[in-house]
């Protein structure tokens, strides 16, 4: 299952803490260690105060659907196999300026094509779950 999935490089120095958090079941956000501003995606410098010091902070893992799509083939084989599926963007309740791309699933280990896309609405509440593929843990989302 999910062979040939597109996956992050867990050694990427900008993001490895995020992926390590997912492996522990935590959805983390990178914060500036100087001024405290949250930012996503992770990056080396804070655009607010230009500090390069970072820390990682926990979130509630709750948010709302900001947008969604339903991709159809032609796609890479691993994704074509489950198409049409949904991809969503979630804005976090903790800070709506922080958004994550993800998938809406019925359960943590469900397939990304299980939810009827016609039932997905912008603004609906969701919460994070975690799903393992190879050595990677991806955040996914279920209805809250």
């Amino acid at each position: 299952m999910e062979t040939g999935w597109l996956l992050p490089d867990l050694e990427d120095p900008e993001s490895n803490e995020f992926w390590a958090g997912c492996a522990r079941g935590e959805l983390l956000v990178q914060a500036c260690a100087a001024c405290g501003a949250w930012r996503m995606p992770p990056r080396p410098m804070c655009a607010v105060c230009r500090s390069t010091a970072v820390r990682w902070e926990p979130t509630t893992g709750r948010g709302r659907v900001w947008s969604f799509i339903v991709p159809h083939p032609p796609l890479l084989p691993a994704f074509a196999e489950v198409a049409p599926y949904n991809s969503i963007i979630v804005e976090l309740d903790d800070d709506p300026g922080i958004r994550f791309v993800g998938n809406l699933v019925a359960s943590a280990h469900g397939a990304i094509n299980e939810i009827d896309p016609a039932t997905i609405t912008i603004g609906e509440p969701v919460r994070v779950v975690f799903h393992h593929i190879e050595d990677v843990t991806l955040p996914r989302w279920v209805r809250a």
Partner: protein
Amino acid sequence: MPRQPATGLIKNQTAVAGLGQTTFGKGLPDTELSLACQAVSIALDDAGIEPSEVDGIASYTMEPNREVDVARNVGFGDVTWFAQVGFGGGAGCGVVGQAAMAVATGQCSVAVAWRARKRASAASRPWAQAAARLSDSQQWSRPFGVIRPVDEIAMLTRRYMHEYGGTRDHLANIAIAFRKHAARNPGSTMGHKPMTRADYMNARWISEPLCLFDNCLETDGALAVVVVSAERARDLKQPPAYIHAFAQGLPPQHQTMTNYFTDDPLRGPAWAAAKRMWELADVTASDVKVAQLYDAFSPLIILSLEGYGFCDRGEGGPFTDDGNIEWPNGRLPVNTSGGGMSEAYVHGFNLVLEGARQIRGTSTAQVEGADVSLVTSGEGVPTSAILFTKDV
């Protein structure tokens, strides 16, 4: 400190004096290098300039052909200025505008810019060439199935529809208008195939809410332009398309097509480029008689109409109603050669040539009295735009 007012040192100082293009198609036998050289050679002949006079080169960073290879094949002289512009489809007006700056400032006197691509084969598309593991911004979208450019733009389209009430009918207006324009253009690849609203509505999905006809074509071919001083252009074979104003745009916190992380993802690079371009110009959006707007995907037309100030935010969809973007009677005919969706998709460079043809008076959907002609490059990536004028 307030920014210095724009003074527009290059305003009307240069012109596009030569246009060249190869045939467009799928699976053309010629190499990309051969196509590039043919397009440049045709553009020089069109201008009436010898290749040995070429001393400036502007190209896309994604261009497969190196400056040295085009220069020694076509027979350029001592090249004293060369530069590239990044971000794929955002670079089209960028390379022409950079060439104009180089000519206007004396770094060169005859500059060429071109784009050559063989992308009609599915295997050549970048998204299909998956890296083993993702370490750049793609790691935040591709593991979740947002893989192709169409997926990235579909996500913004759905949000746009939610915020502003845009509809598929608006997107259909765009696809149908461009197909009608292509039908008048014998060089277009899709002009022979009419499109009805039912054809659009029944087309297969690619990434909902976008269907097949919301996507540009993938085309083999090449196009080139020659940029010289306005003074020189007046003595050459063709009516000059003066480069009146040019700007590039890269807004705060922008992250190319997965621009989901800013406060206002639906306010893209067009707004940044437009602000500077209109400051530099003596004309306003209401003076523009015809526009070539970058159309890798139909929703980019709606965003560009808003970004370049043809209507307010949220009104780009209704702007396309009632034939408003269609030749000959629309308020603003858009993509009069068929654009990337129905003529050819060569990273938006065909839009540059059509914008200049409208000034020359040689378009196959010629707008009467076209004295101000806008061309824009890729919205959704760091972009660029040019205003061509007929008179200075």
